[in-house]
């Protein structure tokens, strides 16, 4: 991941100071930007106030998530959310929040924006913190008495945090092989 960060840093572009050329559009107001909703960065930028516990998350999960993901998050209409650790390099990899997702902040961001599937955006921040806590606990990533909030969530180290590499392509299909 360190190598990847270096690649991402290199992609930063130095921009000269510019002024508006066409003057088309209106200034975006803070209300307008707020109304777009939250986007959460891996360092926790964007996380709102509030907190949730594993126990609270279990109750919300049973009420709002189990009908698609199964009582034990084993998957049904919706995908499985637990297990799969140690399978990524096997013939049948099981990619779950626990085995694959590199950042806990992504779990918060995705649940908050996209879940429940038929009522996206309906969960309050505290409910989302609780659900994330519950799912992380199901995956043995945090203890059952831990609380998730804007401070603790970005500090969670996901098991597959270092499991990603920068794109090395073209890796197959070179010029030399095919000249005729």
């Amino acid at each position, binding site marked *: 991941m360190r190598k*990847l960060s270096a690649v*991402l840093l290199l*992609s*930063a*572009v130095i*921009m000269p*100071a*510019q*002024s*508006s*050329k*066409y003057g*088309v*559009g*209106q*200034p*975006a*107001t803070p209300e*307008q*930007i707020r109304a*777009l909703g939250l*986007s*959460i*960065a*891996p*360092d926790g*930028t964007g996380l709102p106030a509030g907190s949730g516990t594993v126990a609270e998350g279990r109750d919300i999960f049973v009420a709002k998530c189990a009908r698609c993901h199964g009582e034990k998050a084993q998957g049904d*209409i919706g995908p499985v959310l637990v297990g799969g650790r140690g399978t*990524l390099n096997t013939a049948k*990899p099981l*990619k779950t*929040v626990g085995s*694959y*997702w*590199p*950042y806990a902040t*992504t779990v918060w*961001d*995705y649940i908050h*924006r*996209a879940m429940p*599937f038929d009522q*996206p*955006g309906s969960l309050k921040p505290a409910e989302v913190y609780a659900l994330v806590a519950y799912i992380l606990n199901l995956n043995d990533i945090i203890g059952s008495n831990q609380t998730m909030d804007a401070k603790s969530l970005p500090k969670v180290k996901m098991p597959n945090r270092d*499991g*990603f*590499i*920068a*794109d*090395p*392509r*073209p*890796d*197959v*299909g*070179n*010029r030399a*092989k*095919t000249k*005729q």
Partner: protein
Amino acid sequence: MNGLGKSNRRKMLKLGAVLGGGVLAKQKMRAEENTPAQLGIPLGPYGERSPYEKAVRWTRDSKTPETGSSFTPLADSVGTLTPSALHYERHHSGIPTINPSGHRLVIHGMVERPLSLTVAEIRRLPSVSRTLVLECGGNSGSEWAPKTAPDVQHSHGLASCSEWTGVPLALLFQEAGVKPGVSFVIAEGADACRMERSIPLKKAMDNILVAYGQNGEALRPAQGYPLRLIIPGWEGNANVKWLHSLRLTDQAYMARDETAKYTDLMPDGKARIFTFQMEAKSVITFPSGGQLLPGAGLYELTGLAWSGRGKIERVDITTDGGRTWVKAQLQEPRLPIAFTRFRLPWRFEGREAVIASRATDESGYVQPTRDALIEVRGTNSIYHYNGIKSWRVQANGNVTNAEA
């Protein structure tokens, strides 16, 4: 897309009720058959194809129909453009119905002047039109499996080619003023799940469009109406539809669709991330799986080639399972990152033949074999399959997938 057809049919029915059943019956009959001496049907406001044309998208089964994908019928396509009504679809929480008068694109985050733009305001700005292929990162995902897809719609139908019209993102960012330190743009759609992707600023300043037009008219709702990103050569998912937010930041946001999905798992358990680039690819569309050659004789082999890295330089065709290759004729003009039609006359001798095409792009990249891809990437990476696709023409003229 079907909606218009339905509403036209409803109008026809209404008209029939007014004019009397006899006229309607007569019109219906004319829709089925016609001779030069008979009057045709009257003119209409929005055209429909001939009732004899039946090509449709194939929609993959989904437990939740709002999330899924539909595939372009490439075997039925001619030329290089995909009709908007047959453009492939990939949605994550349904197609939103958006009234453009209330829609705003907000550019915010690390900018000097946070901007809110209406669709009308964006259309006032200097626009460009580009013919570009759009391909889902998961297109041809079926081909990693030992048993590959039976026809070209299933194997390659998550790729389509349109003329897109829009405003360069660089121009909009110039208007907003990019602050120092920005490295990523977080693009977000106005669909139910507000799907988001992190796009490197470098690419945004290079050639990304905020598109409002497709094939001479406004974008179709399934293609992001009223605004979407068009990112030449990059996987479809990053071309965020129903675009309403561009947040300029100093880091990638590691969204679900760029970590849990659209990452390519390698055999060692590591996954490649931010694999935006689509590579050179080609497929023979005739003869292809599911088709039948009625007998021995001359046929024109044809198909489509494209590359996310630029123009198609050449396409070679084998009709003997890869032993010998012949250069195909390419339809001009060859546009960068667009479908390029290739053709080659071929005599079918009534003996089994394994046929395939191999594309080379202007960067010198040559489309690899299936085996070469699998050797490096294994079979669990899901995305970015671009291997050579072989079809087996059986002695009786039936065409099947070669890896069956």
